[in-house]
Every structure is written in C-alpha cells, then in structure tokens.
C-alpha cells in the first residue's frame, strides 16, 4: 500500500497535532511536574516532522501507484482474513472457548492459502487444539474453555 509521502506525512502531522492539543487539556495538579510536557513535545515533534515529509513530497503528491496485490484475489483474501481472524477470535473466544474458535480459524486460513479441505481440516484440528492446550496445560495460562469446559 504505497502512498505518496505527501499524504502519509500529512496524516502524521495531523496525528501529532491531535496529540499535542489533547495534552493541553490534561489537568495540572498544583506543585507537581506537568503531565502535559512530554506529550506536547512528542506531538509537536511529530507534527513538524510530518509536515516536513509532506512538504518534501509535495511534488509527487498525485503519484498513486496501485498496489501489486490489487486484483489478485488470493492475496486480497489473505490480507483481509488476517485482521478478520483477530476480530473474530477476540469477540468470540471468551464465550465459546479458545479451542472452539481456534480450530475453524485455522481451517479457513489454511484453505485460503490453497490447502485442500481434508488436509486443512486435519491441520485445523491438530494445531487448533494443540496450541491452546500447550498454552493452558504447559504454560498454565488460564484460557477460556467455553463450550468444552466440561471436558477439561
């Protein structure tokens, strides 16, 4: 996702400005060192550097190059799947348990990568149960069990 420097610089300049402006709103208790100081410096520096990048890239502001992956369905599916998998995991794992969610996430991921359904299901079942079990039994991490709570 190659964007012209002008726009990324501008985005960071705006972000830095927002950091600095929000910092102005922090309460400053009497006598103590100000909690505004550092965020203001950081925000201002980011805004300045962002502006410098934007200025430097002003000439090429319109040079959008289409990313290579555009129009390549498998790549786009994979790239959409990665963030989606995290969202699904974060939203459903606490209720349904990590194994119940990890197995389908693994299966679908393998299949988008082009694995045939049978090996994909096998991989999903193996990795989707082995990894959660390793974390909960070997490392002692209290993972939510959810649906299969009764079995463990």
């Amino acid at each position, binding site marked *: 996702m190659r964007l012209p420097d002008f726009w990324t610089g501008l985005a960071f300049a705006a972000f830095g400005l927002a950091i600095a402006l929000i910092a102005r709103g922090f309460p400053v208790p009497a006598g103590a060192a100000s909690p505004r100081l550092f965020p203001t410096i950081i925000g201002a520096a980011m805004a300045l550097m962002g502006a410098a990048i934007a200025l430097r890239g002003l000439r090429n502001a319109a040079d959008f190059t289409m990313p290579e992956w555009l129009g390549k369905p498998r790549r786009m599916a994979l790239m959409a799947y990665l963030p989606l998998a*995290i*969202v699904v995991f974060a939203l459903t794992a606490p209720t349904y348990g990590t194994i119940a969610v990890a197995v389908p996430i693994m299966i679908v991921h*393998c299949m988008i990568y082009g694995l045939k359904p049978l090996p994909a299901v096998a991989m999903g079942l193996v990795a989707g149960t082995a990894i959660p079990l390793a974390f909960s039994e070997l490392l002692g991490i209290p993972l939510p069990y959810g649906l299969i709570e009764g079995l463990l």
Partner: protein
Amino acid sequence: MDAFIAGLDLVFQTEVILTIVVSALFGLFVGMIPGLSATMAVALLVPVTFTMSPVAALATIITCSAMSIFAGDVPGAFLRIPGTPSSAAYTNDMNDLVKAGRVGDALGMSAVASVLGGIIGTIALILCAPLLADFALNFSSFEYFWLALLGLSCATLVAGDDALKGGISLMLGLFMAVVGLDFVTGIQRYTFGNMNLQGGIGFISVMIGAFAFAELMRRASVFTGQRLEVRLDVSGRPMPAAKTIWQQRKSITRGGVLGTLIGVLPGAGADIAAWVAYAVSKRFSKNPEQFGRGSVEGVAGASSANNAALSGSYVPTLVFGIPGDSITAIVVGVLILKGIQPGPLVFSQSADMVNALYIIFLISNLLLVPFAILAIYMGRFAISLRDEVLYPVIMLLCMFGAYAVSNNIFELWIVLATGLLVWVMNENDYPTAPLILGLVLGQVVEQNFMSSIIKADGNMMMFVNRPVAAALAIITLIVWFFPLIGVLRRRTARDPATDTPLS
C-alpha cells in the same frame, strides 16, 4: 575455596541438573514463540519453583532466561519475526544472513556470542560485584535521564535511510509510552475512559503486532502460491567458522562489557543492552553500511550484550536486593520466599549459595551451544514447512501469545491496531525499530525527567552538577549534535546541482 566446593556440591545433584535441562528446553520453547519474552518465561515458572530447593529454583530461572533470550533469535533469523524483545535490534541482519545461506554466521554466531557474552557477564559478577554495585548505586534519576536520552539517540543509528521517517516512528513509540496513568500525578492520558489502557500499552503486544502481524500481512501481499523448491538455503553449517568468530572478537568483547554495565544498572536490562550494543558496534564498525542488511558484527555485538546483561543484572540484585531488570525483580521475590535475603550479608551468610549461582551461570551458558544447535535444526524444520501450514500456525501462536501477556483479550486489539499501522508504515518506508526503541525508553525518559524536576524544585542546573550526570550530558549532546554537524559539512561540500534530496 571451601565455599566453591560447597557450591559445586549444591549444583551437582540429580534434582538440580534435571531442572536445568528441563528449564532449558522450556526456555527454548517459550523464547521461540513470537511475543513470549524471557521475563514471561520466568514468571510462568515461578509457581513451579515454590516446591523446589533454593538452588534448583535459581537454576530454573537462570537457565530458562539465558535460553529464551537466545531462542528469541531463531524465529527472527528464519522468519524476520523476533521471538523476544531483545532480539528485535538485529532481526533484519539475522534474516538477511540466513537468506544469503549463512545460517552459521547468523544463529551460530549469535549462539557463540551469547555464550561468550554470558561468560563475560558472569566473570564480572564473580570478580567485581560489590565494586560495580557501588557504581550503580550512585545513579539517581538525573543520570538515568541522560542515559535514557543517550539510548534514544540510538534511534538515529537504527532509523535506516530516511531520518525524518525514522523520527516519526520514534515519536509514535514515545507517544505509545505515555498512554495510561501518569506516573507522577496518576491522571489518565489518552485512555479515553478505557480501563484496559490505564496501565499503558503493553510492550509485548506491540511487538507481536509490529513484527509478527505486520510481517504476515506483508507476506500475504506478496503470496504467489508457487511452491519454492528451497525457500531458504539452510544447508550451511549451523556454527560459524573459527576464523569468523576470531574476526568478531572485538565486537563480542565490546558487547559483553557494555551489556554487563547496562545490566548492572537497575531498571535497564537485556532489551536496552542489545539496542545500545548494536548501535555502538555500528559506530565503531569499518562497514557500518552493512548494518541492517546482514551484518555479522551487529549480530555478534548485540547478542553478546543481551546475555551479558542477564548476568550483570544479578550484581545489584545480590548486593543490595535492588533488581537490575524485570527478571531479577522476580528473582528477588523467589530468593526471599526461599528465606535468602539478598544483600551484602548474602556473600558471607550464604556463600555456598552464591558460588552455586556462579556455577549455574557458567553451566547454563555453556549448555547454550548444544541447545542452540538443536534450536537451529528445529528452526530449519519449521522453515521447511509449506506456507499454507506455517503461517496459519504462526498466526495462532501470535493470538495466544498476546492473550497470555495479561490473560486479557484486550491485548489482541492492540496487536491488530499496531499491526495494521506498522504494516502501512513499512509499506511506505517508515522503519519499525525506532518505534520499539521509543516504547522501551519513553517511560524511562519521562519518569526520570519528572522525578528529577521534582527533586530539583525546578532548578535545571541540578541536571548537570553531579559529575556522572555532567559527563553523560556532554556525551549525549555530542552524540545528538555530532551527526548534524557532519550532515551540514557534507551538504556544503557537495555540489548543490547534483544534490538529490534524501528519500
């Protein structure tokens, strides 16, 4: 000498030797999983140590931490995803070396340097613990402030080609460090009322997002579906040639000494040591242009430093009960639970214990070599797996690793947000390393600055009127402004007509 033999007696027991081997394997396993740090490996072992003898408990912690610090290099070398934060400084170098078929020069060198660095640190611990501890105790917030600022200047060395973009990345890391409850006043900053953000943005989750998730995104975007016959040439020897090791002697020694000194300072551990040693190696190198593109020198210096820092951090821990880093903070707790009060008396009251500790340090460092070869073969096996199996597994490991940071689903949202952000940034040539550096050092800089200001009642002269503080201040200012002068000089010397802007 009697105490030394008593120490040997304590160590060479079936229970202790067995725990050393088991915890070495455990450390190897945890360290290789992206995001799980050495500190976390040790924290996970604490409940287990409750039932052990004091020597076995210490052996567990020391071996596990030494092993996981090294193991963090393995996924870094093969997949460009560092396993622990202290490997992040030289991940690109390792990966480029492996891509060039030089596994031995990357991981083998890192293993050898880790062993040598660890031994340098241990010798320093044995010979001059009280002396070094006195040196560290003279550091107050003023000195730490300058030191952290000096550490931030490493950003210019890891920033890559575009200083401005590196600067933005650094600022972003510093910004992430200020999110949460303010250290001095306890007010909330940039939490927007979210309870999960009060404690700040978790460093490990950012690591997983910035390295692992962003890397998976990048690989997805270039996925071709073609099966490469050999993805990487990993047929080379797992260990570097003796000649190569000899060539790196300076780099390894420098890293070991630096790492020990940084480890001795309370609050600064292996992570910071690796960054500083990498930056210093670059500064002294004859081939600084190779750094970030497969420099054996960088790998040797930094991996020597992070293992040396582990040993160094035991100096203030043993002498004053002041932990040198997050791992020894846990060690202090375990020691006290075992009825051993760290402090000056520990050397006379528990001399056999202290000697046992030295011996364990030496053993666990020497054990690194066989375990490193094992890890290299495991890594080779993993890399020989097909994309469609390997990457989904890594993805799952990242999600579980992030959850394990604080047993909290919120960490996954941090992985997602930083992962996407860093991926877009990388696509546009904004480097990742300064962001991690900013996050590591941000709080150290701010907290020590604020503490200093409070102590000094606003008198800025206090920042430079202690000898060590003044010296550090001068070094910092030179390091900050020297490159600027250099750039200006080059600018004026160059013909403006052929001068192309940096991009």
